[in-house]
């Protein structure tokens, strides 16, 4: 009984929101989060792009409900002779806040290397040595000035840690609960939406016709290639629903969602899957 209660608790929208918000799935490099979803959702499959889908029910009508699981992030762009790693941003484009890259300056990051996660930090000028900088009007920090320090003293040291060009890099995630059921984390809105969708699917609701539950990749890159792949390979769909949770402070490290909204969304999705509105 206790084990059952524990399993149910771990599959609650609250718990899944915190878990998903702690994961990293940089656009195009969503493999690890896809693995977690496959383990969480019995019967789910993954296509060649990395979309994870779960088909519920059978027959007509065939409907699609989806969330984008990816996030804007970075990959290693180069490794210097003295062991620092420089970065290339993935995703974002023109709509990105000029302050987006500044969020990693002087913070801890995680590099997802071939030998496992490697902690590092993004270098920042020492306060004591700034000598009057930054000036009040100075432009924000950008990824072009990001040097990741993993403690390596040479390029070979960095390579030996399992790091190489294209290793995914993100802020080290520490989902942070505060106030009255508020959750702050990078991409909290997107992850909470996926958590609500997963929680609804795990409830095994009655289904009207067929519902394809999709966790799509590359939603922030290449013209939503992930979603289009699902539509083209598993459609046509009589109805399509993308899920979202309202968030405050979007695209910041403390993007905040209310877990009450996640509960409400999960309940609404259960109804929708069953054919209700």
């Amino acid at each position, binding site marked *: 009984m206790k084990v059952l209660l524990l399993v149910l608790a771990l599959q609650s929208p609250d718990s899944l929101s915190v878990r998903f918000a702690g994961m990293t799935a940089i656009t195009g490099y969503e493999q690890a989060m896809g693995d977690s979803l496959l383990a969480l959702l019995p019967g789910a499959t993954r296509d060649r792009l990395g979309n994870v889908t779960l088909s519920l029910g059978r027959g007509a009508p065939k409907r699609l409900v989806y969330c984008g699981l990816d996030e804007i992030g970075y990959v290693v762009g180069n490794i210097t002779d003295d062991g620092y790693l420089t970065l290339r941003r993935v995703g974002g484009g023109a709509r990105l806040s000029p302050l987006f890259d500044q969020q990693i300056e002087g913070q801890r990051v995680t590099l997802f290397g071939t030998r496992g996660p490697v*902690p590092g*930090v993004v270098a920042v000028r020492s306060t004591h040595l700034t000598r009057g900088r930054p000036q009040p009007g100075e432009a924000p920090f950008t990824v072009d000035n990001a040097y990741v320090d993993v403690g390596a003293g040479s390029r070979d040291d960095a390579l030996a840690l399992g790091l190489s060009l294209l290793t995914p890099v993100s802020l080290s995630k520490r989902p942070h609960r505060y*106030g009255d059921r508020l959750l702050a984390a990078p991409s909290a809105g997107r992850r909470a939406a996926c958590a609500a969708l997963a929680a609804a699917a795990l409830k095994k609701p009655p289904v009207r016709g067929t519902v394809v539950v999709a966790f799509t990749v590359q939603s922030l890159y290449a013209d939503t290639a992930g979603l289009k792949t699902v539509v083209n390979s598993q459609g046509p769909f009589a109805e399509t629903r993308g899920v979202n949770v309202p968030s405050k402070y979007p695209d910041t490290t403390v993007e905040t969602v209310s877990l009450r909204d996640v509960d409400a969304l999960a309940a609404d999705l259960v109804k929708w899957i069953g054919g209700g509105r």
Partner: protein
Amino acid sequence: MILLAALLAVQDTSRIVEAQSVLAALVESYGVSGMEAPVRATVQRLLPSWAKTETDTAGNLWVRVGQGDTPVVIVAHMDEIGFRVDTINADGTLALRNRGGFILSLFEGKPALIHTDGRDIPGIFLPRDSGFTRRLPPPLRVSVGATSRAGAESLGVKVGQTITMPKQYVRLAGTRATGRSFDDRMGCAALILALRRLDRAKLKHAVVFVFSTREEIGLEGAGAVAHRLGTGTRRVHAIDTFVSADSPLELQNFAVAPLGQGAVARALDNSSITPPAYVDSLAQLARARSIALQIGTTNGGNDGSMFVPYGVVDVPMGWPLRYSHSPAEVVDLKDLVSLADLVRAVAEDW
């Protein structure tokens, strides 16, 4: 991550293991200037069992060893940079006052902890809502999720409480580590490690080890100690950060002390100048004990400078630190071992 940590641990010497265990406990204690009690408690827990401590009215923690009336003072500060709750606004947000100097943008839009006598209250440093093309934000505010002053107060928030960002000691590759407040928990760790190995029978004079308060807001704790001991101090050693230019972002015209190459004599900074003969004596002592020592000049002030007006020579010593006063400071544990050995040597042989 676990496998990597295990591999690193196998490579560690027992000295590195001990240094890390002391340092990690200190770094994961919170103590903004004026609210150092949690750090003081951690220091007391880590000291050798024979050490008798005294806390003065300024909050400084003293450990006296040896005999005599004119002690050598060795001082490291317990406090860290952060914020203080200045006002609880009508909309429930908190207006802040900085405690110490740092780049404000490093805290903007990050998780926050409001420190109380009991459980910490979680919140967030609010991201700015204008001025997106400038690096520096307007004065930061914190939200605890409340929408009114009464709501914030009902969560336990009070004016005067201190605020920081959650922090964690994290091991990097080799013997490197990252975290926040290595400045000056490395100094505190060096004193503790030196005391653990100190041969008290060798002392030729009294030595007072001081864990000081409120360094970041004007060397205030050390000022109280200097006032009390005055001209009767034989010599003072501030054990504090050597802010290093060993970084791709720094000018290389001074402060270039590479990490991992040992302790650093902070011979010239913004608060004191060590007489060259004393620097030479320190270098001789290090050579005699086979302790790695670098000699350099950097920016910042140090607690020992509060003794200089009493005619006391200040011989500050430190270790190279990258990215000072940021949430991602980086150190090398080998330098901590070297510094602890040097502190011990100074107490026993100089």
